[in-house]
């Protein structure tokens, strides 16, 4: 403001007087802000605003102070204010630049760009979005800041980078994470050391490491914990994994108050408070490295790096390192170890993190197949979250730390596994606030619908198919993208703030949402690769391709040099592979469910289209291919095209009258992505994930083919051919109602109603009910 207009000396003098007054006020405001006296702080800011009207920085700090004073309740207002400040700063900066350029050299005009720098307000916008769990938004806001990061002060650079790392992790964006991480390693020069160096330190302290990992002899573990662990361990050994036991142990430990050497829990320090000692930074980066490796599921390397992290963390704050170690063991399937480490990490003791503790323990119990315990833990985690939110004064931090929607999602998964579709759907619908961009959540809600349908929990019967649906076609891409409404649609599902009740029609909407998101994911994947250069070196390359590529390439290597380049790349590509495979399976599941739902809605044309899409997918799992053929065949039957239907079934035909196994047990393993890590603990594979989804066994699927072919032949009058087939089907699927009905039909058509009656009597799923209507004279 001032120096802008000051070209003569007297004005400059006046300015300096104003400056000294205002800067004194600014200091006062800051100290009030730091001591959380927001009312006083705002008073001073108002005075400043009189002295320097429209100063963007005053407005900025005012917005922040007011937001915190009001209990962080109105994020929208804050974002608007920050956006206004940002625009204002940019305009002023542009004006100043013009003036500076236009000024004839010699007139001593010098402008500091500092005063119009909008980076702080941009950072604060990103922070706000982060707290609202809008991680992608936070990432995209930070991106331009990151590109100009060199000109920013180191303190703010730290904050930007760490926020970027956390956002990237939350988005599971390994590539973005890596670029930022590489930059931090390089710039902050903490020198995580070459691999050799790591190796030597590791060897030097390997003794200590093994101590920490065995945990019982480590000096940091208190006696109480020791007894806890033995108790927990013994209870585990007895396979008597009782939630109450564990809880009792935890409670007992809580009552012991603070005991000497328990590692202090530093998790909740602010970055600002954290002295940026190089050791701290080193530990911080090492922990992030482990989180990256866990994200990309490079468990082998993660194991090594987490040891290194434990080394750095020794006698400092090791709770995070222990937590990551627990996560590693969880990922490896060593659940007992994971529980131990989780307990030792001590995060259950802090009100801010006890919810996280309960959630993670719930995850472990879920994997162990102990759904009851898991449910108790998740609910407890949610309660911890609510009590955190009720805390006064509301801290902004507790907002971001409020993971209740994530826990709610977990609870949804659990309810679904327990066969409680209505509860599960409520959880998913709540969690959709955060996860609405994830295709999987839509699949899950659709699964809730079909499960509820099967259990007869849906209120309405089959609703008229097209009336409850509104279709909007998305046409074109990018800036040309248009939405075209299909006429004759009712607005029942769209735009209503409340979630509609579960129904098959809802399932259909959810499934198409999921498919849409998945196809978008594939598109954006290529986008991502082209916009990958969040890394400054690569942007440079992009804008100066004619200036030197070799150079930028070498820079790139340097940037990522901290971790072994080859290892990182391989774990990145492995991660991409896993992601791709998961998405492929998800797509197959979405199409299969779509075909099923359309059949249930008596809509064979759409069912056929979904089944065909499923069958056309490359690398379609045999399980889903089987379903695809079956659904397509049924839809074709309903469309009076028995010959085409037969073609789908005969794909599995072996000779004249036998069927191949449509899929084998190994296909299930592939589908569940059961990777055999070096799991140390053996646990019954029938627990947990394996029994997660009940489906036809391979042999039963073969029986289904027999039965369906028999039904098809019967409709065409080939009863003699159908008869042995249905007999075969019934020998596999003894009590199947559909097969029995088909068999009865065939018997009747062949004139042997005695046989049909015999079948009715044999089938245990027939009930003879008395006639319902009585009209007596």
């Amino acid at each position, binding site marked *: 403001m001032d120096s802008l207009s000051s070209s003569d000396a007297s004005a400059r003098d006046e300015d300096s007087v104003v400056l000294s007054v205002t800067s004194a006020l600014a200091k006062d405001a800051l100290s009030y802000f*730091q001591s959380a006296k927001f009312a006083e702080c705002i008073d001073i800011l108002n005075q*400043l605003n009189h002295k320097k009207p429209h100063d963007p920085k*005053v407005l900025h700090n005012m917005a*922040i102070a007011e937001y915190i004073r009001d209990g962080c309740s109105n994020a929208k207002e804050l974002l608007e204010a920050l956006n206004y400040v940002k625009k204002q700063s940019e305009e002023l900066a542009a004006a100043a630049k013009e003036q*500076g350029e236009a000024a004839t*050299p*010699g007139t001593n005009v*010098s402008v*500091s760009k*500092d005063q119009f*720098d909008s980076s*702080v307000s941009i950072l604060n916008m990103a*922070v706000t979005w982060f707290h609202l769990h809008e991680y992608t938004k936070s990432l995209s806001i930070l991106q331009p800041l990151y590109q100009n990061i060199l*000109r920013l002060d180191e303190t703010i650079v730290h904050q930007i980078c760490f*926020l970027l790392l*956390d956002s990237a992790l939350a988005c599971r964006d390994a590539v973005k994470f890596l670029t930022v991480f590489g930059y931090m390693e390089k710039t902050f020069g903490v020198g995580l050391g070459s691999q050799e160096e790591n190796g030597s330190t590791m060897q030097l302290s390997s003794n200590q490491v093994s101590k920490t990992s065995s945990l019982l002899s480590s000096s940091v573990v208190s006696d109480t914990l020791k007894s806890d662990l033995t108790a927990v361990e013994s209870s585990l050994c007895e396979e008597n994994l009782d939630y109450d036991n564990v809880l009792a142990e935890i409670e007992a430990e809580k009552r012991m108050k603070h005991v000497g050497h328990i590692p202090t829990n530093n998790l909740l320090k602010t*970055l600002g408070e954290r002295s940026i000692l190089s050791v701290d930074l080193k530990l911080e980066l090492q922990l992030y490295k482990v989180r990256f490796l866990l994200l990309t599921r490079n468990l082998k390397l993660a194991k090594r790096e987490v040891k290194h992290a434990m080394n750095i963390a020794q006698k400092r704050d090791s709770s995070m390192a222990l*937590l990551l170690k627990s996560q590693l063991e969880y990922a490896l399937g060593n659940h007992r170890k994971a529980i131990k480490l989780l307990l030792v990490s001590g*995060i259950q003791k802090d009100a801010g993190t006890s919810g996280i503790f309960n959630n*993670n323990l719930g*995850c472990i119990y*879920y994997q162990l197949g102990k759904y009851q315990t898991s449910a108790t833990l998740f609910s407890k985690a949610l309660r911890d979250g609510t009590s955190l939110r009720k805390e006064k004064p509301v801290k*902004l*931090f507790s907002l971001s730390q409020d993971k209740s929607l*994530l*826990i709610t999602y977990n609870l949804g998964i659990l309810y*679904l*596994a327990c066969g409680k579709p209505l509860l599960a759907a409520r959880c998913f619908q709540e969690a959709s606030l955060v996860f609405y961009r994830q295709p999987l959540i839509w699949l899950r809600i659709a*699964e809730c619908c079909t*499960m509820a349908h099967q259990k007869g929990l849906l209120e309405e019967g089959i609703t008229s198919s097209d009336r409850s649906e509104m279709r909007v076609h998305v046409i074109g891409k990018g800036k040309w993208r248009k939405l075209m409404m299909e006429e004759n649609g009712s607005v029942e599902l769209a735009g209503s703030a409340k979630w509609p009740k579960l129904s098959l029609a809802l399932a259909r909407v959810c499934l198409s949402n999921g498919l849409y998101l998945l196809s978008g994911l594939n598109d954006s994947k290529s986008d991502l690769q082209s916009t990958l250069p969040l890394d400054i070196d690569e942007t*440079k390359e992009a804008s*100066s391709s*004619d200036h030197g590529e070799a*150079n930028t390439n070498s820079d790139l290597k340097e940037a990522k040099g901290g971790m072994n380049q080859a290892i990182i790349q391989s774990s990145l590509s492995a991660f991409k592979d896993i992601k791709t495979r998961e998405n492929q399976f998800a797509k197959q*599941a979405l199409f299969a*469910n779509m075909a099923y739902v359309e059949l249930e809605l008596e809509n*064979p*044309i759409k069912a056929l*289209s979904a089944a*065909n899409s499923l069958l056309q997918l490359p690398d379609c799992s045999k399980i889903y291919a089987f*379903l695809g053929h079956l*659904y397509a065949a049924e839809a074709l039957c*309903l*469309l009076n095209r028995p010959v*085409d239907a037969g073609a789908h079934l005969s794909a599995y035909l072996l000779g004249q009258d036998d069927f191949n196994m449509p899929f084998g047990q190994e296909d299930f393993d592939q589908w569940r992505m059961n990777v055999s890590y070096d799991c140390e603990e053996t646990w019954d594979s029938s627990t947990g*994930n394996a029994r*997660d989804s009940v489906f*036809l066994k391979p042999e039963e699927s073969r029986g289904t083919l027999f039965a369906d072919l028999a*039904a098809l032949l*019967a*409709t065409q009058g080939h009863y003699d051919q159908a008869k042995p087939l249905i007999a075969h089907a019934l020998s596999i699927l003894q009590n199947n109602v*559909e097969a029995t009905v088909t068999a009865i*039909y065939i018997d*009747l058509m062949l004139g042997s*109603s005695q046989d049909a*009656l015999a079948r009715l009597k044999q089938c245990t799923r027939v009930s003879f009910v008395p*006639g*319902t*209507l009585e*009209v007596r004279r």
Partner: protein
Amino acid sequence: MASEDFTEVPKPSEDFTEVPKPSECERGLAQHEDPSMMIMNKEETAILLSLLKSDLRPIDDVLSEFSSKISRSRNFIVCSSLSVLLQDLVLLRGTDRIIAFAIMYHCYSSQKPSSNPFVSDMITAACNEQVEKSERAFLLHLLQWNSYDNAKEILKQSAADYIKSFDPSTHDFPELGELQREYGDKADPGPSSHIFAEYSLSKLLHDPDVPRGCDPNSPEFDVQPGGNFKIGSGDRDEAISGILGSLTLKGLGPRWIRPCPPRFPVYQSELLWIDPDNKHELVWDDKMCADTSRGATVRDLLVKGLKVTLSPTEQEVITTELANDPKLVYHCGITPRKLPQLVEHNPQIAVEILTKLINSPEIVDYFTALVSMDMSLHSMEVVNRLTTAVELPKEFIRMYITNCISSCENAKQDKYMQNRLVRLVCVFLQSLIRNNIIDVKDLFIEVQAFCIEFSRIREAAGLFRLLKSLE
């Protein structure tokens, strides 16, 4: 993707599952009707039952009562139920059967007999040897087959009278095939639209506990009014009303097994393990009303430096300030546009600033400014110094050299200036080559041509020799 799939099936507009078949329209059957509406209700059952029993009233009378009590939209459901009852030859009495068929005929009497959806039932019964001849003749009258055209007269009688007055000797009966030909295709399709239902069967089965040979018509097991209950006794009306009350339109067909897709497995990434985030607080902007004099001296000096060469002391002030505050270089006010002026007057300072900016994304603009400024001793000095201080993009150096060479060629009017320039360029190039900054191969032809053109100048000849020695 979806549009491709439609190639196999009729276009959506021709979607025949959504548009009911003509025959369905005639029957008043909507596609997705409420299942409870597909069954006859209690009231309708009672009405129908009493009508069937009115064997002493004129059939016309019965029919008009039927029309007045049963809504037209329910005709199809009533007739379907009757059709099921009629398939069992003993369930209904002879008179009941006559009335039942009369109702079936009456419901669709406004159309030709061949378009009656239940014509197949009538034909089958008319040709069935086991059916009473009186009934078969009655049906042929209803169908208006050949000489049978007396329906109107017959309907004036009561059912009982018709049977009593029936003279079997005057009738001959056609073959099934004959009738089917006559009433054509209409005699075939069932009530539903797809093959499962089309081939569906009556759901009514004979109870295995009732002996096969048992004649339900014999009065032996009828419930006698006021009489004692006998094992095996049954009430025909109760059976009929029970059947009527629970019949639905759909018949028994083969059933397709439609497995539900398995629940998607929970991958490890789906169950959310939570790590605490770092604490990200809102940041106070401490630049508010801060002393803007940061770097003011440097900025002022640099503004001066655009005009005149700075004194060594002034230069030192700038160098130290820049070293003390690594971010200052971004705020010192030297933009790419101003760079050429600084290069001309204070090349050392320019090198200092460029070296510090080398990692900034904006360095490209500074390079561009450097390449496009007029060639001079100072600009060459700056580039030369930069090459030793930092690694410059190869493309930039290449472009700069090309620029140098063309500047020499263009400076024809001033021979003195040209000589000076050429010598400078030669020395510059020699330095670059000696320091391995450039690879001669990249520029060989260009530089060689340059040397030959200016071979009169000593330095050019020297450069040429250097080139040859490297070859």
